[in-house]
């Protein structure tokens, strides 16, 4: 079925047998089984941990002195730890699982070097565990989004490179040679992450780092590339693969996809420095230019997704909701890109800089778009590689509504509250403490969003554990049966 969404280039017939022959889907899926199972299980663990840590962080705005006697539970540690769990533990790891399967499935080839992936998975998780534990212990590097200390980063990077090598080898050994648009996005994301991570780590953590506000510039450059390109391209690659696959319609169309790709790597990669930062003025001017230019590709994403997706009722309930995850994701993508474009302008950032507006929009991108798209991928991929069905379709539906409502109730109060906060901050006749007290209302409202998202994560985790338990016990039974049969025969 994935054939239907390959590029507009005419499909040449592939030999059914011989060394270049396409491999049947069942075998492809079986080859991905354990790497993807491990990646999915551990990333779900990180997702749940991220939920708990982020919840603890919000609690501090309801009652500041809650858990105040333990240094490792202070807001300045649980907040970055939670965000690192979400990005590195869940989004990148689960994104890699989806990428591995998409490459194997598009190329009709088995996953290459599957054992390497498992070693990589192990190292990545050791690295993130050390990193997050380091943040809680008080070893944070102090750079936002790059808080994990060196000893965690080292393991994680080696692990990442192993998984990425396996993905690239699978891509290289593809039996169906036609390039799909998802290949463009996902291959780039694979390369991009180690490039920006090593650059940022080299300039900030190792040896003689750059000094002064240049550190902030490198950090901002890193974060913008991490969201727009690494998470963005994993999400877009997922969207452009699963929307046509689920709808059983060709992608509309390949060249719009290439336009989005080129526009984003040309302009979406600039560091976005808010006006007024202690840096030469051209930094923020170019940042705003870059942000404004990404409006066009964001609208193009909406066009591609909405003109390709299938509203038709012949889709099963399960597929309809899996597709909704990614359709919601594309809406969040467009909304978040538009908001950050407007926000990059001089007039707007005078108000919103330093307020809750910016983090709310970041989460709208990371969670509303990237994480939702990855959920779509996981829901589609996991039953196939494990050879079973999710025990409950209802839980998928519930997860979708909880996550969508969660992101809405999280982002909207903080976006609106952030603007009010900014106007308050800019009016020197309003005492600071008054401004701060006024923001407590939207902050507390956003806890509702946190709780809805948390419930959604529980639904996802339950479904996943059910699926794993069912298929694994099935595998165990058949293995035992086979073994006994052999014994009887001998």
């Amino acid at each position: 079925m994935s054939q239907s969404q390959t590029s507009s280039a005419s499909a040449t017939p592939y030999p059914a047998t011989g060394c270049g022959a396409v491999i049947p889907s069942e075998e492809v899926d079986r080859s991905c089984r354990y790497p993807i199972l491990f990646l999915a299980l551990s990333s779900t663990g990180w997702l749940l941990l991220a939920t708990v840590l982020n919840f603890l962080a919000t609690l501090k705005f309801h009652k500041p002195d809650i858990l105040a006697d333990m240094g490792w539970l202070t807001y300045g540690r649980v907040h970055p730890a939670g965000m690192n769990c979400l990005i590195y533990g869940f989004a990148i790891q689960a994104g890699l699982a989806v990428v591995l399967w998409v490459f194997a499935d598009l190329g009709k080839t088995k996953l290459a070097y599957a054992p390497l992936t498992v070693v990589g998975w192990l190292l990545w998780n050791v690295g993130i565990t050390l990193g997050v534990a380091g943040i809680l212990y008080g070893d944070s590097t102090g750079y936002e989004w790059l808080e994990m200390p060196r000893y965690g980063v080292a393991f994680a990077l080696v692990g990442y490179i192993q998984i990425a090598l396996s993905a690239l080898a699978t891509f290289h050994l593809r039996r169906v040679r036609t390039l799909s648009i998802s290949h463009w996005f996902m291959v780039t994301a694979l390369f991009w992450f180690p490039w920006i991570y090593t650059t940022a780590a080299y300039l900030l953590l190792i040896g003689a780092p750059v000094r002064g506000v240049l550190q902030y510039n490198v950090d901002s450059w890193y974060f913008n590339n991490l969201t727009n390109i690494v998470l963005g391209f994993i999400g877009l690659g997922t969207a452009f693969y699963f929307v046509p696959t689920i709808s059983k319609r060709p992608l509309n169309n390949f060249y719009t996809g290439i336009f989005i790709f080129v526009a984003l790597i040309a302009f979406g990669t600039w560091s976005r420095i808010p006006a007024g930062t202690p840096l030469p003025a051209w930094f923020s001017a170019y940042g705003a230019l870059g942000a404004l230019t990404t409006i066009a590709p964001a609208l193009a994403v909406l066009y591609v997704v909405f003109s390709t997706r299938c509203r038709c009722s012949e889709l099963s309930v399960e597929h309809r909701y899996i597709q909704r995850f990614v359709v919601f994701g594309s809406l969040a993508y467009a909304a978040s890109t538009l908001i950050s474009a407007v926000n990059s302008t001089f007039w707007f950032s005078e108000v919103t800089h330093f307020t809750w507006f910016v983090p709310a929009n970041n989460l709208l991108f990371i969670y509303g778009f990237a994480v939702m798209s990855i959920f779509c991928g996981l829901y589609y991929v996991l039953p196939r590689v494990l050879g079973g069905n999710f025990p409950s379709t209802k839980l998928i539906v519930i997860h979708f509504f909880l996550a969508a409502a969660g992101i809405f109730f999280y982002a909207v109060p903080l976006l609106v509250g952030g603007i009010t906060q900014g106007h308050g901050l800019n009016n020197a006749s309003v005492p600071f403490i008054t401004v701060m007290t006024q923001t407590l209302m939207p902050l507390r409202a956003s806890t509702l969003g946190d709780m809805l998202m948390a419930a959604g994560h529980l639904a996802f985790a339950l479904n996943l554990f059910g699926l794993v338990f069912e298929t694994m016990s099935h595998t165990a039974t058949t293995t035992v049966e086979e073994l006994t049969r052999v014994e009887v025969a001998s």
Partner: protein
Amino acid sequence: MSSGPTIFLVAFLGLSTSWLGFVLAPVLQIGNQGQVEAQMTGNLYPAMRSGLARQGEQVYKANGCVYCHSQQVRPLGFGSDVERGWGARPGRVQSVNQDYLYDEPAMVGNQRVGPDLSNYGLRQTNASFIYQHLYCATDTMPGSVMPPYRFLFEKRKLAFGEKASAEALTLTKDNEPGYEIIPTEDARRLTAYLMSLHQDAVLFETPPLPKPATNDVNGANAGKGSAK
């Protein structure tokens, strides 16, 4: 167009352009700044912090103070940083890169859940007030949402007849007789760091405005974001 290396080349071109423009070019432009003589006073600026304050910088970093407190003053007429008294330059102009050269790391900050701390050391010179604020912010600033940093303090039982030590906290509530609350080493370091925060030197790039009388927001000197 249909080959893996094409994707790699296009991606590499994109990344290197972004790197050249937004990582290398900034470093070439302002990456070589060093200590300079401040105008008017002639002191070297920025001065290296004291050892205790540099250790305090690590405490500030470890506990993520940066997630709620910024350390940057925006220019006059852009926001109300100067009007709120967060700036300290005689010219009432913004922070510049020079201010952060010895910061490890430079914690400029993205959030103002709490007030800006660029010049906290000039606003607050009383260490025991800072201890009290860290121990229980609602005591010193009613309505504050700053979490209490009780783990930076030690509750010590006083021996019979022993007097509380000089730096013991004087609390308005929860004062248990027979006990004293004293700052730990980390609290002393953090306080030394907070008291070392100042961005007040007059530099080439932050000249005092020529006519102080026109310093109001709508005045002739209210350069919108271009105070440099």
